[in-house]
């Protein structure tokens, strides 16, 4: 079955999505490195990568701009001609600020939004704003057309679905639709000031305080001039996600709940008309044999190999325990394959050591950039 290179064939954007703690950042970096080594000009966008990985890519001084990873660092990984690896760490707040600056009618309108206390709270913290800003940056880099391939490591969210929902949630928020009830028909500010205020509003005012309502009103008023620009932009960003040259790669782990989530996310991708490339399952315990004997039989078999008493049994127990988890992984992954209806599923083995440098990424790439048969051979040899 396919290598990740086949999966990405003809694509200019690869979005690595998945829930937290499944190895998304590592997978994204490995894909980018591997594609660069195969002669492509690749940029990986990430939020808050683990420090050592960042260090190994020379990322520590990076701001919100793409920076080329020193070719010396990836030399020795058989980089083909033309191959370049670029990377950037996303700064969600700065991206949001830039977006406001872009859409503001003038400097005064810009400063009014940037200085608003509500804006200052949401630009970093609003659910979905980090996700949306990641897309925004992706859109910006894609429009510039400098790269053959962009790999996005989606922000750590509770749920991979947060990512797909982000543009609509952000625009809905900015449109302040939920606040229209307060604003219409005479304008929110007027109501807050007390003129013709409804009873419900006055109850609410008593509960949350005049201040908050006034600030909200000011915020949405300041933003009102930018709504069209934001909406238009968000539509184009959404369209890019569904583009023929964009594909989603779901990253997950082999545990039951992780596979459940991958299956669920895949169905949502299909519903939203997105292109699905394949799934990368990290930390898989490949089965080391289909019929592992019972512990006593295995111990007896191992006994002649060891002089030290008890060691044979301990080694036997290790394999039995390993196989218990390997069987679980096998069961969950075959369920994943079934639900993904023949789409590629790439299993990365549970390696003996942590991956946090370019050498480690290269080990992962031995599995990502090959066929299933070779993967099994490598993982069980």
């Amino acid at each position, binding site marked *: 079955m396919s290598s990740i290179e086949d999966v990405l064939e003809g694509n200019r954007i690869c979005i690595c999505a998945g829930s937290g703690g499944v190895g998304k950042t590592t997978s994204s970096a490995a894909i980018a490195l591997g594609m660069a080594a195969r002669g492509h000009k690749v940029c990986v966008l990430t939020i808050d990568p683990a420090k050592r990985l960042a260090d190994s890519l020379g990322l520590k001084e990076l701001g919100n701009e793409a920076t080329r990873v020193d070719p010396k660092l990836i030399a020795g990984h058989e980089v083909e001609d033309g191959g370049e690896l670029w990377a950037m760490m996303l700064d969600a707040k700065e991206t949001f600020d830039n977006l406001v600056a872009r859409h503001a009618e003038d400097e005064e309108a810009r400063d009014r939004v940037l200085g608003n206390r509500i804006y200052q*709270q949401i630009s970093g913290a609003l659910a979905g704003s980090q996700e949306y800003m990641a897309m925004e940056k992706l859109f910006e880099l894609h429009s510039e057309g400098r790269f053959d391939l962009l790999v996005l490591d989606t922000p750590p969210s509770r749920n991979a679905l947060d990512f797909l929902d982000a543009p609509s949630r952000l625009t809905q928020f900015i449109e302040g639709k*939920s606040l229209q009830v307060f604003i219409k028909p005479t304008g929110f500010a007027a109501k807050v000031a007390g003129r013709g205020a409804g009873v419900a509003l006055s*109850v609410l005012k008593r509960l949350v305080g005049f201040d908050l309502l006034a600030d909200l009103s000011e915020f949405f008023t300041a933003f009102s001039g930018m709504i069209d620009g934001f909406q238009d932009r968000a539509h184009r960003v959404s369209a890019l996600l569904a583009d023929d040259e964009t594909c989603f790669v779901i990253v997950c782990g082999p545990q039951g709940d992780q596979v459940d989530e991958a299956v669920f996310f895949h169905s949502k991708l299909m519903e939203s008309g997105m292109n699905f490339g394949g799934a990368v399952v990290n930390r898989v315990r490949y089965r080391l044999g289909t019929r592992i004997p019972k512990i006593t039989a295995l111990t007896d078999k191992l006994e002649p190999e060891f002089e*030290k008493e008890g060691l044979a049994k301990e080694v*036997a127990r290790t394999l039995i325990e390993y196989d218990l988890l390997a069987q679980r992984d096998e069961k969950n992954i075959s369920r994943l394959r079934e639900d993904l209806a023949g789409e590629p599923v790439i299993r990365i083995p549970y390696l003996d*050591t942590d991956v946090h440098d370019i050498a480690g990424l290269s080990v992962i790439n031995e599995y990502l950039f090959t066929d299933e048969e070779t993967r099994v051979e490598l993982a069980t040899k």
Partner: protein
Amino acid sequence: MDRQFSCLWCLPVRQIGLNGRILDFLNKRVLFVTGKGGVGKSTVSIALGIRAAMEGKRAIVVEVSSTENASRIFHQADVGFKEVEMSNDFWAISIDPEDSMREYVLLQLKVKAMRDLLFRSRMFTYLAAATPGLNELVTIGKIWELAQLDRKVKHGRKYDLVIVDLPATGHGISFLQSPRTFANIARMGPIHTQAKQLQAMINDREHSGTVIVSLPEEMPVNETKNLEDQLSDDVDVAVDRVIMNGLYEESFSGADLKEIKRLGKNDDPEIHAAGKAAVSQCSRTASQKEQLERLEGLVKAPVTTLPFIFKPEIDLSCARKLAEEIA
């Protein structure tokens, strides 16, 4: 198995003789459990709840943010916005912001007509959608309410300890910061007062604290260090424990490993497989040990370790086993 455990719980605490250490942090009133995604926060929260119950306390484990975050164990027990007793003195609740919002308004507005008016107009829901952090604020409000000895809700049970299974790192931090954020947004009025009160609860080092769950791997260890700094400096909350989860038992010595490595040359597939599994286990155990030492050097809070559980899926019985292991 279950029966045996519940019998044990009936005994006075000292007769259980659980590894003889006093878990003083379980004497707090509220513990927030956080950590990087995928480290086992939910399982550890449940284990802490069971352990507190074993120590003779009535504990409740709180899951925040509706179904998306739901742990399998809670899901199977169908825990919702209602206090459910999972086992003797160990309770659970899943807090949904909308339910908390409703309860908050009920507690704040004594006049029924006013409440009805507000609910009918759906103004509070609209406000929550427009105001960042309001959902988190009312959720913390509910946590505070659960921790009161004099409960606000009718027929509320008293809990000695409330354990909160927080969202992962970044979301967890902004969750704990929401009272301060909110006190800044709403500069006066009842919500401001309430936010201040919740902030005081979080900052109260005598009665509240946090537990960070980590794994013996490079990235989770780094994140634990950053998280500890952020929690104590930015959020200003006590960090009582770091729990290193999923540690392998050290089964083989260096001399053993030499012997085991010879199996790699064996032609018998089963012997070969056993050798591979054991060598890989040794290598993982060694790197885990390194990471544990690194963590102990990096963090200020005491570190507690929990063993890796060789079970296909983690269930309530695994959480019970872990509960006994907490030292």
